[in-house]
């Protein structure tokens, strides 16, 4: 790196420094990537290669058998469908409830507003596992154990703080002048919410639904506690399957890949905006 670049003095950057930076980057990049690569590697290997004590870096005889055997498992497809239903219900409900709550908190000053914000935030700070026992008891009393709706309800509660908080940030970012202008032009309050604020909150809704999707899709402790083996989602199925069958690593890794696909696809679609989505809500006071 030249010290003078197009006439501009650049930072005291040596070749060595840049080399060091690049090398550490690559080494740690590989460390981050290696386990993921190993999953792929294992998933495409036939059983004898998986169990071999001399590891190979690529499958010698790549096969889709592991995927077939994972997909062919009795409870795989039901688990996938359960997961999709629960996730869809929880995310949709969180968006509706969360948007309205965020509107109230962002657009109105009222008695108890601070208290609500504080409670919502405080709840996020306590590991949810502490609540597993009373939740189990409550769901049992309400006869909502072993039901998809019961699990979706709990997930909704889990997703709400982040949803409300993020959407509140987005809504606070919309100038109040827009509301006022629309009302002078004859919009009613509900119309302002529906026609002005909702469309402008679009990116926030996308960000929160992605977050919600990932959380709900990947959850396994609550569903495993509340539901019987027939009513699990993919993640819980994967773990249940592992303990049942010991070390069938090939199909397990194939199952892990299938389970991760929706999240990865989602991520690749929105990859560019992820940082904005993560932080945008937090910025505006």
């Amino acid at each position, binding site marked *: 790196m030249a010290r003078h670049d*197009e006439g501009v003095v*650049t*930072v*005291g*950057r040596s070749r060595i*420094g*840049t080399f060091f*930076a690049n090398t*550490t*980057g690559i080494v740690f*990049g590989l460390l*981050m*990537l290696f*386990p*993921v690569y*190993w999953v792929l590697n*294992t998933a495409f290997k036939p059983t004898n290669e998986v169990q071999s004590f001399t*590891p190979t870096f690529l499958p010698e005889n790549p096969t889709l058998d592991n995927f077939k055997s994972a997909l062919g498992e009795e409870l795989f497809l039901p688990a996938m469908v359960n997961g999709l239903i629960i996730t869809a219900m929880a995310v949709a409900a969180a968006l509706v*409830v*969360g948007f*309205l*709550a965020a*509107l*109230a*908190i962002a657009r*109105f000053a*009222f008695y108890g507003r601070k208290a609500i914000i504080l*409670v919502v935030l405080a*709840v*996020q*700070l*306590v*590991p949810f*596992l*502490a609540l*597993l*026992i*009373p*939740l189990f008891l*409550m769901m049992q009393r309400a006869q909502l154990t072993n039901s998809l709706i019961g699990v979706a309800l*709990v997930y909704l*509660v889990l997703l*709400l703080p982040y949803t409300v908080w993020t959407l509140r940030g987005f809504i606070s970012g919309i100038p109040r002048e827009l509301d006022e202008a629309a009302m002078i032009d004859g919009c009613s*309050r509900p119309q302002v919410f529906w026609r002005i604020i909702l469309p402008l909150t679009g990116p926030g809704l996308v960000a929160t639904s992605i977050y919600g999707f*990932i959380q709900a899709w*990947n959850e*396994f*402790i609550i569903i495993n*506690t509340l539901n019987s083996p027939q009513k699990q989602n993919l*993640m819980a199925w*994967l*773990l249940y399957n592992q303990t049942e069958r010991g070390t069938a690593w090939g199909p397990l890794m194939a199952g*892990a890949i299938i389970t991760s696909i929706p*999240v990865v696809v989602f*991520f690749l679609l929105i990859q560019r905006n*992820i*940082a*904005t989505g*993560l*932080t945008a809500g937090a910025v505006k006071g």
Partner: protein
Amino acid sequence: MRHGKYPFIIGFLAVPVALYAIFVVGAYLQMFRLSLTDWTGYGTFNDIGFANFEKLWNDSVFWTALRHNGFLLLLLPIVTIALALFFAFLLNVGGGSKGGVTRGVWGSPIYRVIFFFPQLLALAIVAVIFGRVFGPDKSGMINGLLPDSWEPWLFLASERWALTCILVVLVWQAVGFYVVLFSAGMGSIPQEIYEAAALDGASRITLFSKITLPLLWGNIQVAWIYLGIAAFDAFALVNIMTVNQGGPNNSTQVLSLQIYLNAFKYSQAGYASALGVVLFFLALSFAWLTLRVSRRDAVDA
């Protein structure tokens, strides 16, 4: 104002407030209530006062678990934040500058995706993968790569190192998220500041410690709290990865796992609730302390 605001407020907040009242506040109250009983998890129960807490005080497993949570609480935030800051800096301003514009190292956009990858894998899957990485015999990934003449490393089967393995996985899983978070924060620091400092001959290290770090303080504070909470939890990994759930010989036992085991394995839901009460107060005091201690040095937070 043509419409009163209260109909809106009540209408918009009724559902979430009701959900919270039932599922969170109600659940906590029940947890407090159950912590004073001998409930097994089924049927009826009797009030036994503070007997559960007395038992807890004398329970050596509880103290072991607490010590392990303390270990994670101390190291997880420090290691993760240090690594994340380092890489975020590398990706954003570490690569040298051209035409007066500082940039990240070569290939920054690719790293951003790579670092975020672990975030996409569910904790459950991460746990399963690392169970494989840390396999204690030659079929384990790391041991498989070691020379044949070496004794295989025990990893999770070793009382001494098992908890460190858990820490490594927690860091591996978390670091990408904070790289992205800090990158976003660094992206919002005006280029002019770096340029001005660069003109004055500041090195990478000076740029980092005198500009980046202070301006990111708010983000770091948030990261600290979230990682601390993750350290209090750690349930998924410990439950799935460790030998005999929390072993060998309780060397990876943590509070959350104790709650789970007591409630759903040992049929001691009352005692588990008492542990839950302890976890509740520990987590809240941690967050409160972090906010109090870091508030006064916050720069423009």
